[in-house]
């Protein structure tokens, strides 16, 4: 007669692991119903919890929140893993309207609050600003996504505590899939680094000695560029990307500090305590 003790123990262990995983995943993904005051003019910015080294470990919430500060629009953060109707974060809620995508949010807020932080740019400069915004958000973004999630094991250093290893595992799976779909993950790690370096070169050469991309006043693209470069400069001090910025493009680090000091004087206070 067969002894099934080994199989039973295996089954119990597997069931336990599944239950534990489900509990940990649910703890992060539980959709607490969000409530807003639709009578007030406050913009609710829904984003992931704070990082330990940057206010957001994703460039787009950091871009959007920086824009809100530059434009002096009253806002309130709602830290939640609830995603927009497009399945992404950040998103905003304002007077009963939910809106996803950081750039659509900025366009909406420009209209609602009669704001235009690009007003000081010429038509030609606006064209260039658009080009740099897209370079950073549609190219450099994928370089950094691959560096963090596709090549090697992602580190939790600097991440919010609520993002445990299991959550990171699922994020990594999704990002690998998306990065292959977009195209960047078809390249080798060396090729991706080369692509990123060309973007840093372009940003650095265009910025030159200027305080912000187009002079002494920041524009929308400065918010986008800051959101992206801050991930490297402040959140990944051990990465080869930071090393190349420090060594070859120091004005990009100087730019990050200019934006941080001007619009995030409370930087240290907002971070999750390590």
């Amino acid at each position, binding site marked *: 007669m067969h002894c099934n003790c080994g199989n039973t123990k295996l089954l119990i262990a597997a069931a336990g692991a599944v239950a534990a995983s489900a509990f940990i995943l649910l703890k992060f993904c539980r959709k607490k119903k969000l409530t807003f005051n639709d009578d007030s003019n406050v913009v609710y910015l829904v984003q992931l919890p704070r990082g330990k080294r940057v206010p957001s470990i994703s460039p787009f919430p950091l871009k959007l929140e920086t824009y809100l500060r530059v434009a002096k629009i009253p806002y309130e953060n709602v830290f939640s893993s609830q995603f927009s109707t497009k399945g992404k974060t950040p998103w905003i809620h304002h007077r009963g309207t939910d809106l996803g995508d950081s750039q659509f949010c900025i366009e909406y807020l420009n209209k609602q609050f009669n704001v235009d932080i690009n007003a000081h740019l010429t*038509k030609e400069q606006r*064209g260039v600003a658009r080009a740099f915004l897209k370079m950073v958000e549609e190219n450099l973004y994928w370089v950094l996504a691959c560096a963090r999630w596709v090549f090697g094991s992602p580190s939790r250093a600097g991440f919010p505590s609520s993002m445990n290893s299991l959550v990171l595992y699922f994020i990594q799976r999704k990002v690998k899939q998306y990065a292959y*779909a977009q195209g960047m993950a078809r390249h080798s790690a060396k090729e991706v680094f080369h692509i990123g370096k060309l973007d840093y070169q372009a940003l650095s050469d265009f910025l030159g000695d200027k305080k912000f991309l187009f002079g002494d006043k920041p524009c929308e693209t400065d918010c986008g560029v800051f959101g992206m470069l801050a991930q490297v400069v402040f959140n990944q001090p051990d990465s080869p990307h930071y090393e190349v910025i420090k060594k070859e493009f120091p004005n990009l680090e100087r730019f990050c500090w200019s934006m941080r000091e001007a619009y995030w004087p409370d930087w240290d206070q907002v971070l999750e305590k390590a």
Partner: protein
Amino acid sequence: MGSWLSRKSKFDDTSNTVYLMQMPRGTRVPSLSPFPLKLETYLRMAKISHKSILGFSLSSKGKIPWIRHRGKDVADSQFSIEYLNKEFGVDFNAHLTNEEKAVSRAFLKMVEENLFWVLVCYRWFFMDPKDFGFSKPIPWLWLAYIRRMTRGYAYGHGMGRHSEEEIFHIGKLDLQALSDYLGAKKFLFGDKPSETDCSVFGMLAQFVFSDTKSPYCALIKKEFPNLERYCHTMRDAFWPDWDDVLKKGSS
């Protein structure tokens, strides 16, 4: 995909000819993909001896176009250009200042990583398949398969999460940026074309010459006529045999 044997027989690896692997010709544009058109325009601009091999032989990265030169395969249009610049001592950005080179890079990426996906979503999700400029209609099974695959890719990229109107709006902003920067200039940076002109032409030619029933073509004609003018300038300068190429289906 071509087998190793059939790939080998097409090339003479002792010659200096660059073999350009690309899809079969379109009926209204030499390539219905912006990247082969970009790369072939670059080859013509640089006067590099080249031969197009038309088919669906994919690169090591699973994409098209790719090149072969003296036994070396290079995938990706931009890596191909970097390789060819070195091999043939070419630099179409030599006349640009550092700041202009930076702007050139930014526009290259805007067009290839953003406007490209506007084109992809339009063609595969919203355009009438009869308007495709292929010489034969796409079999419905292939169409369904490509659409399904493209939906996955576009969703992963992000563009596929937007509505048709939102995608059009994003495309319009990119076209606006190109038009405002080009202004009255002959090419993006003046009277001499640069590398980015090859790419911008490769992309805009899709709307201006091939997808003529699209809202993007109508928009360019109405609000950004300098982009149409620019496409004709590039075509006249580097594709004087445009009509012959379309007729013969090879270069």
